[in-house]
């Protein structure tokens, strides 16, 4: 049993070490369309390395509000006018990007 435990712990450490080096770095761009009460993308997951720039380009057919959780960025989007939200992802965690009028989740940013 002890041998199993030791090898499991060793495997965990090995895997942890391997994982921490695999996150891709670089800026992340998300192109968002709000049309007919639906969002595209719909809750897409993005891996973001801490410190990189996130740019969200939004076009909408109706007035709405885009909210980046955690970073507490909230901007109104006007129908037909593109909106750009750009920020540096400097806190780790998992953060939703949502619209407040049609209440949909556009994306989840996993910042590591």
């Amino acid at each position, binding site marked *: 049993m002890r041998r199993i435990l030791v090898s499991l712990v060793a495997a965990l450490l090995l895997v942890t070490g391997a994982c921490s080096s695999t996150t891709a770095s670089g800026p992340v761009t998300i192109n968002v369309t709000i049309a007919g009460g639906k969002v595209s993308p719909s*809750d897409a997951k993005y891996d973001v390395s801490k410190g990189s720039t996130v740019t969200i380009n939004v076009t909408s057919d109706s007035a709405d509000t885009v909210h980046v959780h955690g*970073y507490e960025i909230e901007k109104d989007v006007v129908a037909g006018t593109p909106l750009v939200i750009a920020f540096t992802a400097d806190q780790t965690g998992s953060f939703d990007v949502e619209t407040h009028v049609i209440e949909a989740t556009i994306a989840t940013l996993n910042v590591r």
Partner: protein
Amino acid sequence: MSADALTITLLQLPAHGIGSRKDLPLPFPYVVVGAALIVAATFWFLTRSWRQVRLETLGGHPLPRFSRALTALPVTVVARVLILAFWAWFVMALIAGKDLVTNPVFGVVFVLVWVGLVPISLVGGAIWRGVHPVRTIAGWFGHSAQPLRVELLGVYPAALLILVWGWFELIQPDRATLPVLRGFVVAWVLLVVIGCLWRGIGWVGSADPFEAYASTLSRLSPWQWQDGTLRLVSPLRNLGSWQPPAGTWALTCALLGTTAYDSFSSSTWWVRLIQASDLPRWLWGLIGMGVMVAIVAGLYVAGVAALRWGLTMRRSLLATADSLAVGLVPIVAGYALGHYLTLLVIEGQRTVIQLADPLGQGWNVLGLAENGVVATPLTYPTVTALAQLLFIVGGHVLGVIVAHDRAVALLRPDAMRRAQLPLLTVMVVYTVGGLLLLFSP
């Protein structure tokens, strides 16, 4: 963004949700290794386990002087004044505060009370009962020596109300707006007070979902009162010597099911399904939570039903389910800490800071407002992930030990191993399921 700019943004935001940061998904290798540990520990345990009941008695060390100090009149009076002052502060913010995320009432209900009662009960024992606003007021009228709950009902009312609370916390869309939270608090106070007038103070233990939850978890703490004296005891003996009230199986299953739904509802698969559908979101929420609770409760009852052939004496299905529910308590604690500990650390600090200015008038009571939220441990995602793994796996191991000890007390020696197998499998399913939900693809 500078700290000043962030504060200004926050102040302008309307209230719409608590806890805007979530934990990163548990890395998949952690899930695999965690699941392997859980299965290995469980079945190693089954083959090597003891055959005499070990945790039947409370044991431990009585602390008569400490008990007398705790129950001394001056201590009680000061404690009651402080407790009621805190709740009066809360009520003031609830009645006269602003409908903004910076109002501390949201953090008090969703974070300090609901999440905070988990570590408080595990570390400090039955503290929630001591700071309960209705029990504290009733205490002035000499109700402190009354029974803890209404025996006939057990905690069935609380189990049902955990589901209602789950709906409010996870599905009700406007829960983080002041009018809706006011409605909730009024409903809770009416439920507790009218019940007490009807069945006595014991109603609080039967029907207040917060108290039933806290009391259940306090059985895993190192403190227990016995014959008017506080004892320092082994947490395993505290839980293992407990004969849970009727309905404890339903309460623990409701807690596991609602927590599981909370994780499940943020999985990509579920979010996309809802967003592609034209059905209202609250309906999907009710369906999702209902299915999750039904799976958890159904598996548990099936596991208990499959064990009954080995009982030494006849015992109803639900009575057996209640008795064995001691084994679910550490799993509930592990789930709660694994899912919500970082929320408590971050939003708990924010709530305490916000309590300095309950009405949004720029007050700085006790200098609290000058503090910032310290989130240093969370900047290392590996630390959070390892802690989550430790809570979930640790809860499972403690649960298996206590459930086995209870099974030894209930089962014939010849049936011991085979009869336990289905229930242990159910526990493995819960725990591996909990890890998978934290991975939440």
